[in-house]
């Protein structure tokens, strides 16, 4: 069984055998059209001894789910995130997913069913793109933004969410000699604040689980913890939860097909 999550920024895939994850991969390069789907799967299968022919059922999800030529079906990313989180953390009732270009707040019940969800895909503020643009401006690596956060000694508040405005504020701060780590912590706070605002539109019921590539940034997680007062549940790799959910859907759909 395989789940493939083609996001705006990366491709993720999970391969499962008898209900266990045997391999996963994240393809971080920008490729056009179906190439990203092929490359992601090739990397996931590498070292497993399996080929695409061995996969009995593949479900595609994410914003690029329609460009996965080898998929048997597709499921929306909201359903897949809910499914993946429910599988990992049955106690989770609220999910905040912060992706490369959008973010979602989802409520699920005991059965893992979606009861409420809100999405931001209109504004780059508070998404991975926001931090990516800022990392570029500060000339630091996107991956280091979590580490730098904890070197900060001075609390800085950005009063903006818009990428363009944050850029001009950050430039002014750099000119004033403010430490990069303090600026980074302030930027992580913007992302957490936007996430919290989205969560507030849904219901913040514990347990809270965080997913998406951005929550690999421990600084963002710390600030979400602070704002919600909850200890968030994080998957070993929060970026592949959508693909995991897709693989679980693949299993379900395959079994349903077998029965008929």
């Amino acid at each position, binding site marked *: 069984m395989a789940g493939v999550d083609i996001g705006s920024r990366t491709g993720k895939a999970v391969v499962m055998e008898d209900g266990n994850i045997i391999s996963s991969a994240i393809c971080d390069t920008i490729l056009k059209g179906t190439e990203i789907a092929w490359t992601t799967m090739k990397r996931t299968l590498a070292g497993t001894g399996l080929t695409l022919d061995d996969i009995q059922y593949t479900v595609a999800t994410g914003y690029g789910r329609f460009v996965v030529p080898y998929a048997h079906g597709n499921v929306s990313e909201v359903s897949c995130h809910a499914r993946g989180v429910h599988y990992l953390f049955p106690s989770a009732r609220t999910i905040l997913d912060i992706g490369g*270009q959008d973010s979602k707040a989802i409520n699920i019940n005991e059965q893992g069913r979606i009861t409420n969800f809100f999405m931001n895909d*209109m*504004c*780059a*503020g508070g998404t991975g*793109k926001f931090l990516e*643009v800022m990392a570029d401006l500060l000339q630091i690596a996107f991956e280091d933004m979590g580490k730098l956060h904890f070197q900060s000694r001075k609390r800085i508040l950005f009063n*903006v*969410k*818009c*990428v*363009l*405005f944050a850029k*001009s504020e950050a*430039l*002014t701060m750099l000119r004033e000699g403010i430490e990069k780590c303090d600026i980074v912590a302030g930027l992580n706070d913007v992302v957490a604040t936007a996430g919290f605002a989205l969560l507030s539109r849904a219901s913040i019921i514990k347990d809270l689980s965080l997913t998406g590539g951005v929550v690999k940034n421990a600084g963002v997680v710390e600030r979400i913890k602070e704002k919600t007062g909850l200890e968030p549940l994080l998957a070993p790799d929060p970026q592949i939860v959508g693909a995991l959910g897709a693989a679980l859907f693949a299993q379900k759909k395959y079994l349903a097909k077998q029965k008929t």
Partner: protein
Amino acid sequence: MVMKVAGIDIGELTTKVVILEEGNILYHGIAITADKAEIAARKAIEIALQHTNLAMLDLSYVLATGMTRNGVSFANDTKTIITCLAKGVRRLFPDVRTVIDVGAESAAVFNIDGAGRVDSFTLNDKCGAGSGVFLESMAKMLEMSIEDMVDEALRADKAVTISNTCTIFAEQEVLSYTFAVPPVPMAEIVAGIHESLASRIFGLAKRVRIVPEVVLCGGVAKNRAFVKSLNKRVESELLVPEEPQIISALGAALLAAESATVIKGN
């Protein structure tokens, strides 16, 4: 002694100064000052004083406006941007009823009644896609000057549609147009960029009543391609002052003159 007063408008990127002498404009200038309010205001007023051969003591009254107006220590008083804009616009266009102000990082639209009172008002200072920084960001990405972008846009008879609101996403959309096969003329792409900002500003303006006369001011009012795009949407002819960027500084100076006269009278 003839009375001289100054109005200072501290914007996000520039500081505008107007000096009035007995009600007439003696000086107006724009200094590029992305700095803290006090420093920005000092820089701009020093330039103004140099140009006019005046000293700070020659000014009977200084009134500051702008988002960070309260940080200016040498100002006698401060007033909101809207109050100053209303005052300044009415001086130039006594029959104005709607003011659209598009600045570097914000845009405001408001109505003025016959007596000069501001009655309804709407502001965008949250999203860059509805202000001048949208055009600057696009120009930078396309490696064009704003001037070239304007000239190019004015040559277009068609414009591409940009469906994303967010500047960051719109940039990706514009980028995909520049790589499109068959190629899309650059004129149509940059015309689309101006259309996008105009539609954003028109959306903001529709939240108040758009009644003539409609005056457009702020730095972006100098952009002819933007004015053309916005004019298509607004039914009545848009009136643009000769120096659209200094209107709130002018209003601040006019209010300074009123206050100085009161003090003198006492």
